[in-house]
C-alpha cells in the first residue's frame, strides 16, 4: 500500500480533504495516526500565546521608529558634517541623561535646603502664571533636622544658579516624566516597582 505524501498529510491535518486521500485514510491506520499526531502538535504549539504590549508601548514604539528612520535618512543622505553632528547629538543625549538626572537631584536638594533654612518662598523668575505647591515636612522632622551641614556644600554650589539658567540648560523636570520613565522600565523592574508600591500601600493601610 502506498502511504500519503507529506503534502497530503499536512493538508488533511489542516482539514483540506481530497477524495483519494480521505479514502486512503479510512483504510490506513498508520496515516491516520500520523495525521492525529500532526493535529495534536499543531494544537499544542498554537496554544502558546505571545504577550500583547501595552498601548503605551505602541506610542513609544512608533516614536522610536520615526526617530530611527529620520536618523537613518539623515546619516545616509547627509553630508559628513551632518553625520558628525548627528553622532555628536546622540553621544550628548547618551551622556546627558545621567548628568541631567544627577544635576536635577542636586538642584532639588539644594533648593530644598535653602528654602528650609530661610523659611521663605523663592521668587519665581519670569513667572507668568505661578503655581504654588506646599510641601510639608513629615511629622517630627523639623527644619533644624533637615538643616544638615553636609547640605551646605550643595547649597553653596547652587547659590549662583538662577531658574532661567537651569531651565535653559534643560535640567528642569516636568509633569509626566514619571510616565515616560515607567514606559522605559523592563518587565523585571516593573515587577519590583509593583512589589515596592504594594508593600508601601499595605504598610500605610496597617498604619491607618
Amino acid at each position, binding site marked *: 500500500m502506498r502511504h500519503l505524501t507529506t*503534502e497530503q498529510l499536512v493538508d488533511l*491535518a489542516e482539514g483540506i480533504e481530497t477524495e483519494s486521500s480521505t479514502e486512503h485514510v479510512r483504510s490506513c491506520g498508520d496515516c491516520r495516526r500520523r495525521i492525529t499526531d500532526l493535529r495534536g502538535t499543531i494544537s499544542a*504549539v498554537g496554544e*502558546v500565546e505571545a504577550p500583547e504590549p501595552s498601548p503605551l508601548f505602541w506610542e513609544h514604539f512608533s516614536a522610536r521608529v520615526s526617530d530611527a528612520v529620520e536618523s537613518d535618512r539623515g546619516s545616509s543622505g547627509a553630508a559628513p558634517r551632518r553625520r558628525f553632528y548627528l553622532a555628536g547629538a546622540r553621544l550628548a543625549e547618551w551622556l546627558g541623561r545621567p548628568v541631567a538626572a544627577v544635576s536635577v537631584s542636586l538642584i532639588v536638594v539644594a533648593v530644598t535646603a535653602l528654602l528650609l533654612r530661610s523659611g521663605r518662598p523663592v521668587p519665581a523668575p519670569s513667572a507668568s502664571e505661578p503655581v504654588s505647591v506646599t510641601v*510639608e515636612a513629615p511629622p517630627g522632622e523639623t527644619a533644624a533636622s533637615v538643616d544638615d551641614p553636609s547640605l551646605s556644600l550643595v547649597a553653596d554650589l547652587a547659590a549662583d544658579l538662577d531658574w532661567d539658567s537651569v531651565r535653559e540648560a534643560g535640567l528642569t523636570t*516636568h509633569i*509626566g516624566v514619571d510616565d515616560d520613565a515607567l514606559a522605559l522600565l523592563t518587565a523585571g523592574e516593573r515587577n519590583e516597582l509593583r512589589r515596592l508600591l504594594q508593600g508601601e500601600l499595605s504598610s500605610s493601610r496597617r498604619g491607618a
Partner: protein
Amino acid sequence: MTSAAVWTLSRSRPEKRGGAIVRREVDAAAADRLDGLDGLDDAALVELSLADRAGAFDLIVERHRQRVYQLCYRFVGNHEDASDLAQDVFVRAFRGLRGFRGHSTIGTWLYRIGVNVCLNRVSAKTLVTEDLDARQHVDARTESPADRVLKHERAIRVRAAIAQLPRKQRATLVLRIYHELSHQEIAEVLGSSVGAVKANFFHALGNLKKQLGGQGL
C-alpha cells in the same frame, strides 16, 4: 514644629505644562500628519512615503507594527529583543522602500524582512525567554494558579523546542501557526515553493513531536 516650604514654579514654557497636555499636543501633531491618509491603502502609502509625504510611512508602521512585533517575539522570546528587532525591520523597510515592487502585499514584504532580521539575530544570539507572567495577560477569574504554572511551563518547553528547529522549519512553523499565513504566502516570504513549505511544516511538526513527545504533548 512642622516646617512648610512653598514652591513657586514657572509655567512660562508651554511645552512643559504637564504630561497630559504635552501628550495631547503630540497626538494632535500626529493626527495632522496622518490627516487624509487614513483611507489610503498600503500601496498608496508606499508611493507617498517615497514622495516624502509626512506621516505616510508612520501610518504603514502603525498598521503593521503589531504583527511585526509578534513575529519577532516568536523568534526571540522576550520583549526587549522583539522590540529592537521590530524597529530594525521598519528601518530596513524604509531603506528598501524604493525596491518594493508591489508584487506581494506590504505585509508579506515586511514579514520577509522580519524573518531575515530575526534569523540573523537568533543565529547569533541564544534565545532568552522572559517570565511569561510578567507580560502575558492572564485572566485570573478563569485560570487557577496551578493551571497558570502548567501553561507557563508548557510554553517554555514549546518555545525552547521551536528554537531548536532548523531555520526554515522554524520560520515556516511560526508563520503558519502563529500568523496564519497560507502556504502560498509563506512560500513568497521565504522565497520557496508551496511544496517545500509543506514539507518544512511537516518536518517541523515531526521534530517538535519528537522533542516534546515525552513531556505531555
